[in-house]
């Protein structure tokens, strides 16, 4: 196929650029920063819901490390396991499979600064794929210690 030289250049740049962007996108696909703002909930907002007598209480799921959960977690929340691992996602699916798809669910981790957390996005994606429509992800900017414990919000310890 004889294409004009200029067109060939443009085609080459387009294919190369698309491939580079695809690789970059894959590298970031798991990152929490790619969760839309509409699916986030801030700690103070969650605390208000938990303290309100009228609000529907969410099912809260910690999708991070067990060692961190044992040290401190949101009272009433359940430990599932790091959703960055296949076994963590499987545990999450198993726990959720029997629940109504409009169940209010809050996922959280707090292992790392938000844009480094490997767990919340895979967990949120898994629940969306299962058809859950009312899932929020707790936006923990730095870590659970700084953004929850040190702010004086309720904490539980142990398993």
């Amino acid at each position: 196929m004889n294409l004009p030289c200029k067109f060939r250049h443009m085609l080459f740049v387009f294919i190369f650029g698309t491939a580079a962007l695809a690789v970059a996108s894959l590298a970031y696909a798991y990152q929490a920063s790619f969760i839309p703002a509409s699916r986030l909930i801030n700690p103070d907002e969650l605390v208000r819901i938990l303290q309100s007598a009228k609000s529907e209480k969410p099912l809260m799921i910690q999708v991070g490390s067990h060692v961190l959960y044992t040290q401190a977690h949101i009272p009433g929340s359940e430990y599932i396991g790091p959703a960055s691992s296949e076994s963590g996602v499987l545990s999450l699916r198993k726990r959720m499979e029997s629940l109504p798809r409009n169940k209010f669910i809050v996922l959280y981790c707090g292992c790392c600064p938000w844009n480094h957390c490997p767990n919340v996005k895979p967990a949120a994606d898994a629940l969306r794929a299962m058809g859950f429509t009312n899932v929020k992800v707790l936006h923990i900017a730095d870590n659970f210690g700084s953004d929850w414990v040190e702010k004086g919000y309720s904490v539980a310890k142990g398993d």
Partner: protein
Amino acid sequence: MKKGILWGLALIVLVAGLRFVIRRHGAAADLRGTSARKQLLAPDFSLPDLSGQDLHLSSYRGKVVLLDFWATWCDPCRDEIPHFVELQNNYGSQGLQIIGVSMDDGPEPVREFYQRFKMNYPVVIGNAKTGELYGGVLGLPIAFLIGRDGGISAKHIGATNVSVFEKEIVNLLRSGAGSSSPGS
């Protein structure tokens, strides 16, 4: 064709640049966690290393210790490991001992990681009790610098530039105690 290659390279540089900016933004936010030094004695612990042998922190008294709480699944922690390997290589003979405390839920991924990253310092498997001893390890990474006298010289929450660690380590190695300025 050359022009096309140049455009392709330019795109790669752009993507790499964006990645760098995003990571730096994260690191800058993490650096806010660097807290002022308090001269506290580092709590002793005994934890199993990757071969199952107990490691006692107190047995490293007399050395400058960089105690790194980390996990294999933690991005910023992983980024720091090659720098720690380099620091251990460069300053080990002068009295630096880096000790990793893995907060993974088990040793299996840590063993594999240890080999892959050619880690040259001991790694123990941490637990919630150890985290609590150090004021709660509720986010990773967290690193403590401990002077030769066993005093905690600095605590760094979040990813920290290796030059910060290096400056503090050099100061501690020179001072012979835990009372040198950490520079943070």
